[in-house]
C-alpha cells in the first residue's frame, strides 16, 4: 500500500459506512412509503421514524466525510465527477434538503394528516437520494466520467444501464438493510407485530437485492465488459463470494429471528459489494487517470492522513457511545423517568461579593482589550487584546448571573 492510496482507503471505508448506515436510514424512508394505510401503516411509519431519529444526522455526515477527503486528496477526481454528474448530484442534493427538512418539521406536526404528508415527502426524498447517488457510482464504474471540467455528457453519462442498475441496487440494499435493522429494533422494544412485519420485509428485500445484484452481472457483461471480467477474478471475486455468503447467512438469521447478529452480516454483505467494485476498478479512478496520478501533493496527503487518523481516535469512541446508547435502548422514546431533582445549591453558585468583583474585572478587561487590540500594533498585543475582550464578555456575563436570578425570584 502506497501513501497515495491511503486516503482512497479512507474514502472507501467512509463510503461503506455511508452505504450501510445512511442506506438503512434511507431504507426506513422507503418502508414508510410502503407501509400502507390505516393504523398498521401508521405504526410502521412511527417505528421507522423513531428508530432512525437519534442517529440519522451522524450517519449522514459520512457522506460529507467522503466528499471532503476526496476533494482534498484527489481534487481533480472530485471536480471531474461533480461537474460531469452535476444533475444527479443536484437531484441528490434536493433529496437531502427535503429529507432533512421533513425530519425537522415532523416534530411539530399535530394531526395525523400533517404527519402522513410529511412522511410522504420524507419517503420520496429517501428514494430520490440513494437512487441518484447510485447512478453516479454507476457512471464512474461504467467509465463515463472523463477527466476535466464538465467534460462528460450531461445526461448520457449517468443514464446508462450500469447507472440505472446501481441506482436500483442502492434502493434495494437500503430497503433490505433497513428491514433487518428495524426488525432488530422492534425485537428490542418488544413489539412482536412490528418484528414479524419487518422480518417478512427483510426476507423479501434480501432476496430481491440479491437477485438484482446477480442480474447486474449480466448488465455489466454487456455494458462494461472489462469491469465485468475483473470482477470475476482474484480479490474482487473473493469479495463477491463473501457478499453472497453473508447475504445468505443473513437471510437464515432473519428467518430464525436472530436479528441482532443479522445486523452485522447484512452490513457485511453490502460492504463486500463496495469492496468488490473498488478492487475490480483499482488502480484506475477515472478513464486514463490512476490513483497515483490523481493524488494531491505529498505534504497534503500526509496531513490528511494524520488528520483522519487523529479524527478517528475521537470519532470512533463517540460513535461507539452513540450506538451503544441506541442499541441498549437508552435513547428510545417512551415513558420518561421521573426527573431527579438536584439539591438546591444556588448559594454556592457565586459568593455575594463576587458580582462586584466580577463587574470590575469585566471593566478592566474591556479597557485592556481596547488598549491592546485597537491602539497597539504588534501581533502579540492583539492576541492579548482578544483574550481580554473575551474575558470582558465572560466576566460581564457571570457578574450578571446573580442579579438575573435574584429579582426574578420575587415573582
Amino acid at each position: 500500500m502506497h501513501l497515495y492510496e491511503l486516503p482512497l482507503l479512507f474514502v472507501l471505508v467512509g463510503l461503506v459506512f455511508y452505504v450501510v448506515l445512511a442506506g438503512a436510514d434511507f431504507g426506513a424512508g422507503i418502508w414508510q412509503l410502503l407501509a400502507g394505510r390505516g393504523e398498521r401503516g401508521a405504526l410502521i411509519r412511527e417505528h421507522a421514524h423513531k428508530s432512525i431519529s437519534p442517529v440519522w444526522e451522524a450517519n449522514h455526515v459520512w457522506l460529507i466525510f467522503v466528499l471532503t477527503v476526496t476533494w482534498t486528496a484527489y481534487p481533480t477526481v472530485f471536480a471531474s465527477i461533480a461537474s460531469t454528474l452535476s444533475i444527479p448530484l443536484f437531484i441528490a442534493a434536493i433529496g437531502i434538503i427535503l429529507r432533512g427538512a421533513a425530519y425537522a418539521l415532523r416534530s411539530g406536526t399535530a394531526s395525523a394528516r400533517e404527519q402522513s404528508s410529511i412522511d410522504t415527502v420524507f419517503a420520496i426524498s429517501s428514494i430520490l437520494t440513494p437512487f441518484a447517488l447510485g447512478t453516479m457510482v454507476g457512471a464512474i464504474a461504467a467509465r463515463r466520467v472523463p477527466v476535466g471540467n464538465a467534460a462528460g455528457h450531461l445526461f448520457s453519462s449517468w443514464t446508462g444501464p450500469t447507472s440505472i442498475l446501481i441506482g436500483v441496487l442502492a434502493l434495494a440494499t437500503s430497503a433490505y438493510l433497513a428491514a433487518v435493522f428495524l426488525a432488530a429494533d422492534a425485537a428490542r422494544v418488544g413489539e412482536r407485530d412490528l418484528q414479524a412485519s419487518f422480518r417478512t420485509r427483510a426476507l423479501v428485500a434480501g432476496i430481491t437485492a440479491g437477485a438484482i445484484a446477480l442480474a447486474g452481472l449480466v448488465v455489466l457483461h454487456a455494458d462494461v465488459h472489462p469491469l465485468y471480467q475483473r470482477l470475476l477474478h482474484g480479490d474482487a471475486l473473493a469479495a463477491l463470494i463473501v457478499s453472497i455468503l453473508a447475504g445468505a447467512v443473513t437471510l437464515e438469521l432473519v428467518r430464525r429471528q436472530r436479528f441482532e447478529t443479522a445486523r452485522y452480516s447484512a452490513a457485511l454483505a453490502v460492504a463486500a459489494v463496495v469492496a468488490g467494485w473498488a478492487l475490480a476498478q483499482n488502480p484506475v479512478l477515472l478513464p486514463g487517470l490512476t490513483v497515483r496520478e490523481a493524488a494531491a501533493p505529498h505534504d497534503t496527503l500526509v496531513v490528511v492522513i494524520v488528520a483522519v487518523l487523529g479524527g478517528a481516535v475521537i470519532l470512533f469512541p463517540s460513535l461507539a457511545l452513540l450506538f451503544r446508547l441506541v442499541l441498549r435502548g437508552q435513547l428510545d422514546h417512551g415513558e420518561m423517568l421521573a426527573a431527579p431533582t438536584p439539591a438546591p445549591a444556588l448559594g454556592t453558585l457565586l459568593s455575594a461579593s463576587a458580582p462586584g468583583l466580577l463587574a470590575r474585572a469585566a471593566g478592566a478587561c474591556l479597557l485592556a482589550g481596547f488598549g491592546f487590540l485597537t491602539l497597539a500594533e504588534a501581533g502579540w498585543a492583539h492576541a492579548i487584546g482578544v483574550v481580554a475582550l473575551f474575558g470582558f464578555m465572560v466576566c460581564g456575563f457571570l457578574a450578571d448571573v446573580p442579579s438575573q436570578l435574584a429579582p426574578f425570584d420575587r415573582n
Partner: protein
Amino acid sequence: MQALSFSVHIPLVCFGIAFPAMILFVEWLYLRSGDELYRTLARRWTRVMAALFAIGVITGTILSFEMGLLWPAFTSTFGSVFGLGFAVEGFSFFMEAIFIGIYIYGWDRLSPKTHLLSGIPIAIAGMTGSLMVISVNAWMNHPSGFELLGGKAVDVHPLTALFANSFLWPELVHMYIAGYIVAGFLLAGAYAIGRLRKYPLPPTRYERTALAIPLTIAALASPVQILIGDWAARDVATAQPIKLAAIEGLARTTKGASEHLLGWYTQGQVKYGIAIPKLLSLLAFHNPNAVVKGLDTVPADRQPPVNVVRISFQLMVGIGTLLALLGVVYLFVRIRRKRLPESLWFYRALALAGPASVVALIAGWVTTEVGRQPWVVYKVMLTNEAVTGASGIPVGYATLVLVYIGVGIGVVWILRRLAGMPMGLPGAGDGVSDAEQPRGVV
C-alpha cells in the same frame, strides 16, 4: 447559488456556535439551583436547536456539494491546499451530530451530569467547525502555503496555508462573536415580540429569564464586536488595499484620506456622503496623514463592484453600531436599576434587532466576498476561471430558490409550532406559560 445557500446557512451557523453554549448554561443553572424553570427553558431550547441543526446539516451538505457543482476548477486546482480545513470540519460536524443525538434523546435517560457533559462536545465542535471553515475563507483572502506552476498547485503546505495566516484570527473572532450576537438578539427578539403581544400583562418569571440570558450575551458581545471589526479592517487595509478602497469608495491613492458616511459611489467619487477629513487614514493606519491606496492602483477589470461592497459594509457597520448602542442601554439599565428595561420602545427595538443582526451578518459576508472580486483566490485565481463548465446553472438555481423558500416557510412553521407547544412538565408551575411567542424571524 452558493451565495444563496450561504445566506441560508450562515444564520444557522450562528445558532450552532452560540446556542449549545446557552442551553448548557441554562441546564447548568438548573443543576446548581434545582429550579424547574431552567430545566423547562433548556428543554424548550433543545427542541429549537434540534430543528435548526437538522436544517443546518442539510444546508451544510448542499454547500459541500456546491464546491463540486459550481466550482470544480477551484476545487481541482486548490483542493489539495484548502481541503484539509473541510476534512477536519467534517469531523467537527460528526461530533456535533453524534452528541446532538445523545443530548436531544438523552434528556431524562442519562444522569443529569452525564447529560450536561454530553452537551459540551456540541459546543466545542461548533467552535472547531467554524474555525476550519473560516480558515479556508481567510486563505482565499490571503493565500499562501503553495506555489503555482503551470496552473497546478505545487509545493503545498496545507498547515501553513490554513493556520499560519494573519487573516485567520480577526476573521474567526469576528465571526465567532457575530454568532453570539445574532443568536442572542434573535432569541431575545422573539421573546420581546412575545412581550409586546401580551402587553400590558407583566411578563412571567420564565419569560424574563428566557429574554435576559440571550440578551445579556448579545449586549456584552456587540460593543466588543466594534473593536474586533476595527482590528479586522486594519488587517484588510494592509493585505487587501483594493477591498478597503472599494469599502470606502476611494478612487485615487490619497494621503490623509477622508472617510465618507452614506452616499453613492459614482465616477470616481462618493456623492451625497458626509466626509470626515483624515479619518480613514487614522482608522486604517493609526496615522491621520497615512497614504491609503485607491482603486486606481489596479486596472478597472480587477476592481470589485464598489457600491455593492460599500453599501454592505456601511450596512454592517451601521447596524452593528446600533446593536451595540442597544446593548449598552440594556447593560446600563441592568446595572443602575437592577432590572430589565420596561420601555415598550426598548422591546420594539429588540424585536427589530434580531432580523437586523442577520442583515448585518450577511452584509458583512457580502463585503468580504464581493470585496475580493474578481478574484476567488486573491490575486491567484479569477472567479470566472473557477466556475463549472456544466450548463443548466440557471435551472438549478431556480429550483434551489424554490426549495429553500419551501424550507424557509417550513422552518417558520415548525418554530411557531414548537413555541406553541406546552411542555407540561411537572413542577413547571407558575412561571411557565404556554404563551411563549413564535420566533418567526429565523
